[in-house]
């Protein structure tokens, strides 16, 4: 297993949200985590990314326990998180945001190479490299957040609701980019999504969470065909 959580419990203060969450991602896998609002999808990603400490259980990456490490250490290990709120540096230019994304990279050549790569991936960012991040449109900001995440040469990227607030075309752009990264860079991707159809079509494996518990998991196409899933998430 490349990245996995073992019997993970997590929450906020005394409030436990996640119960016994087991997620396994193989290297280079494109997976998704689905579920209704407020079940703990974001909490799962935050716990893996080191923004919340687990109450119990383990997060293992590449054979190493990373559960409980501070967020900056997790990034150094190669696991990067793109939050729903994006957390961009709004008063810095697009270019400077990308450079901040490469904070853990010391080699200037490597930074430049990655910069060219993400500018190539998201042409829009290249055109607007001097603009302040805070004045970008919602879709552009989402691209910037993903691009910033890529700057640290991550091995795993966790993306929280990439399609939230985006038009269908923009959503396609973002999903295509993730797909390209997954294929070209062998990047392991875990997305949390509301849009179940599109996500299950794009990904290989999926997990379904309800009330902090993983209730179902398997190949995305099987989930897509599952009657229970169709009723609850696809409205069929």
């Amino acid at each position, binding site marked *: 297993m490349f990245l996995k959580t073992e019997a993970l419990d997590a929450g906020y203060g005394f409030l436990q949200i996640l119960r016994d969450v087991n997620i396994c991602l193989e290297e280079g896998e494109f997976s998704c985590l689905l579920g209704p609002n407020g079940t703990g999808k974001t909490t799962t990603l935050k716990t893996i990314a080191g*923004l919340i400490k687990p109450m119990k259980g383990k997060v293992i990456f590449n054979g190493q326990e990373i559960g409980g490490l501070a967020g*900056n250490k997790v990034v*150094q290990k190669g696991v990067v998180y793109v939050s729903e709120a994006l*957390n961009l540096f709004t008063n*810095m230019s697009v270019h400077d945001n990308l450079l901040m994304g490469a904070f853990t990279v010391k080699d200037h050549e490597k930074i430049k190479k990655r910069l060219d790569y993400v500018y190539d991936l998201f042409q829009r960012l290249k055109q607007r490299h001097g603009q302040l991040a805070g004045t970008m449109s919602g879709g552009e900001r989402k691209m910037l957040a993903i691009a910033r995440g890529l700057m640290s040469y991550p091995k795993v990227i966790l993306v929280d609701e990439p399609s939230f607030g985006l038009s269908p075309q923009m959503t396609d752009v973002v999903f295509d980019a993730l797909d390209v990264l997954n294929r070209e860079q062998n990047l392991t991707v875990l997305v949390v999504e509301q849009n179940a159809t599109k996500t299950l079509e794009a990904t290989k494996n999926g997990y379904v969470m309800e009330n902090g518990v993983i209730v179902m998991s398997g190949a995305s196409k099987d989930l897509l065909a599952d009657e229970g899933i169709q009723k609850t998430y696809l409205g069929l």
Partner: protein
Amino acid sequence: MIIKKLVDIWKKTGTVACVMLLVCLALTLGSAITRGPYLLVNVISAGCMLSLVAMGLALVFGVMNIGMFAHGEMFMIGTLVAYFVASPFQNLLYEEHPGLMVYLAPLLAVLAAGAVGFVVGVLVELLLFRPLRKRTKGNWVMNSFLLTVGLGIILVNGHQIIFGANYKAITKYLPGGAVDILGVYVSPDRLAAIIISFLVVIGFWLFMSKTRLGTAVRAVSQDETGSLMVGIDLPLIFTLTMAISCGLAAVAGATLHFMYPSYPSVGLEPTYLSWFVVILVGLGNTTGAMIGAFMVALFKVLTVEYVGSGWDHVVPTALIMLILIFKPSGIFGSAVRSKVDQ
């Protein structure tokens, strides 16, 4: 680049600053025939010193969200360190051939004060704010503010208990008489103070805009979670920020020790003045703090000149209150928690 920035700042200051500057300019020009140059020197030296103190205050607010009320006490620590380092060399001032040491001693005093201030800043963060940060969920601004008030009281009384309440003063730092600059006589100490604060401000600016750590500090001021997500070590940046801020105040105290003898509550005036500045320009804005420092210095000097020396706190305060009534977010219009932009 710099011009664009200046234009930007100019746009942000808006009409309030315009009117204010015009009034001040008219006043200065009116007196230019006789006292103008002297006033100018006073404004520059007071402004430089206040910049150092106020920029640190703004930095700590912008990055750590702490309303630091013990900031003047760091100034006090600076004066105290400078006193102990410089006073053994005072007799050199009156020797026929004092040698190099007479110039090195003041420099040493300033450097030592900066170093001690830096270390005190590190300790303050590690011993006070880090434990508090672990336990505070909401109410951080209020809790940390109260902690700094307590810290101020402890430092003032600590000074009194350990070193006594008397004035610990040096006569001056540098030998020689006043220097004639375009008809204005400026003491060497004052000239040195202006040069040192100028260099320190430039150094600070270079650090914030050109270095990896400096950019990290700016990033943290804009988004803490985002900083963590790109791999910035938050505790390290917090410690560094507090240390730099305290170090700057201590350097200001040491540089101005020839004017401010060290006594327990010598930090009161720098605290109040730097708070005037950051309230005036909007909390957390370091560039603004530098400009604001010169404005407050101008208010102060003009008040002393035209109204009387007893009024030098009253008039600036009243002016600032007036500005705040019309523009509550400060003249640079930043929100309560602002950004540290270059």
